[in-house]
């Protein structure tokens, strides 16, 4: 029994470090992109279109991972794309968390009509297909970084609200909350000082998972050509181009796809790893 537990712990630790490592690397890449990218990610060179990566014959070694149909350097575009991906992950993740957790906390602790209204809204939101909803919202508010972040917040707040509401409800029924009330703490004080700290581990796990989801949503919107402008390097935009020219130039799809895959995997494994860390039974 003890053995199995330490094994789980060790495996979870490795998972946590690997995913955190990849994300730290990505942050460094995003910060240093202009310095480490070998080429200008926007520079087109129609004579160097669809060059394969360096190990394939016919490659130009100065384009390490090859070029797309307009002759732009795939590696440089991936490195620069990390900036947008991480910005979306961080900003929309935090904003979604703030909105969703606040509403969930209010619904779960205050109950009454506040809970009725918020729960009804959650039900309505759950009846929307999320991808279609996001595409519709971008069509309404127009493309651009701000719109993407806003769309993610509008769609995904329910992820936090649902879970936090349930947890706040469970915490609100506990003795320590009752004694805080008797001690004369106000409702806002109880929510922020008593309940929030106990729900925080769950919120942190959800936030990590949400960042991974945000990266995917941005990629999907770029894929249907609704994200930023088509020139700016985004992983989703590169994937869309790669999907279209898949039989002529597989590398345009493969490299951004691998990057996106490990990024999403890392966010989600980090979340799962943190969940185990916070779990008092495993700890």
């Amino acid at each position, binding site marked *: 029994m003890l053995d199995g537990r330490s094994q789980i712990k060790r495996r979870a630790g490795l998972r946590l470090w690997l995913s955190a490592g990849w994300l730290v690397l990505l942050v460094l890449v995003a910060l240093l992109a202009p310095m480490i990218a070998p080429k200008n990610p926007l520079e087109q060179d129609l004579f160097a279109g669809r060059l394969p990566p360096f190990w394939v014959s016919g490659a130009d070694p100065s384009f390490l991972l090859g070029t797309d149909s307009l002759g732009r350097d795939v590696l440089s575009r991936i490195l620069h794309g990390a900036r947008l991906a991480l910005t979306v992950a961080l900003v929309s993740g935090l904003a979604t968390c703030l909105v969703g957790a606040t509403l969930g906390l209010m619904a779960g602790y205050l109950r009454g009509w506040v809970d009725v209204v918020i729960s*009804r*809204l959650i*039900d*309505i939101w*759950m*009846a*929307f*297909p*999320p*991808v*279609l909803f996001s*595409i*519709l*919202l971008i*069509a*309404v508010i*127009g493309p651009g970084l701000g719109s993407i972040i806003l769309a993610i917040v509008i769609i995904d707040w329910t992820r936090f609200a649902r879970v936090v509401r349930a947890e706040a409800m469970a915490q609100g029924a506990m003795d320590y909350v009752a004694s805080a009330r008797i001690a004369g703490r106000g409702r806002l004080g109880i929510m922020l000082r008593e309940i929030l700290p106990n729900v925080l581990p769950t919120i942190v796990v959800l936030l990590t998972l949400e960042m*991974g*989801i945000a990266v*995917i949503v941005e*990629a*999907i919107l770029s*894929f*249907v050509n609704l994200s930023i402008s088509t020139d700016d390097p985004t992983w989703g935009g590169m*994937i869309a181009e790669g*999907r279209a020219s*898949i*039989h002529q130039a*597989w590398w345009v*799809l*493969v490299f951004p*796809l691998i990057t*996106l*895959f490990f990024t*999403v*995997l890392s966010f*989600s*494994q980090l979340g*799962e790893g943190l969940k185990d860390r916070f779990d008092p039974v495993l700890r």
Partner: protein
Amino acid sequence: MIVLRALLSRLVMTAITLFGVAVIVFVTIRVVPGNPIAMMLPPGATPEDVANLTALYGLDKTIAEQFLIWGQGVLAGDFGTSITTRQPVLDLVLGRLPATLELSIMALVMAMLIGGVAALTGTRLRGTRTEGGIDIANGMALSVPDFLWGLILILLFGVLAPIFHISGRITPSLDLPFVTNFYLFESLLRLRFDLWADIVSHMFLPALALAIPLSAIIGQLLKQSLKETMHLDYITLARTKGYGENHIILREALRNAILPTLTLVGVQFTFLIGGTVIIERLFSYEGLGNMAIDAVINRDLPLIQGIVILFAVIFTGVNLIVDLTYALLNPRLRHA
């Protein structure tokens, strides 16, 4: 009595949800910049032409008036006319629905098969390296969404080893004798196995992409509840009776462990249906989701409304059915 009252309140809640969805879509898409009427007319149209057409689609009235007119139509089974194709929205949407339903159900079946086999194998070989391997594969399948699995499958089985088709629903040059749009189902009924094979070859990869994340959820949950069941007394009893491990897992434990998994599958199935939107786009599969994205791009307001409402009806309908089935299967609720 209690069941009946619960059912009624569920139905009322569902109606409120659908009404909310309708209001939100209706208002949202009317804020969309870009005039759909201007896109319909040839260059050189006079201002009167524009005004006439705007009036024809009722776009000159206030949003509240438009909603009332639209709502009356919907209750009478009329969802309006598509602006781009000028066909009734209901016909268009129902024409595409079978494609999406077939894809979703095929994906659901695949997810249950993969998840079930993974859970049973993991339970049978617990404590071995194989179980560890299954757990890791499960974790990965769970972490990465259908969109990325779709792209990976396209690369592996569409390009690297071109076994399956990666776009469309059927090879366009084939002669189709179908009277319904349930191609997969009808080709089987007509015993046209050549067509059936072609359709399956088109559907396999998108269905698998949708199935992978769900199969991981099913596998994880089923394995967990099998694990709990294996510690129960009646399993120990079966063991002392001398039954083999395979018999115990398949015949004794599975029956008890499967119920909690099944209730979860219902909710997850709605997420899977939501995933068809982008997966259909990725595989150029002519279903509802693909049509929805086109409708948004073309600013086809009546069509967008119709599709979103239909999705909402499917989602709430699936949830309703799951709750009812659970109530019927659960003896404590049935006899209350």
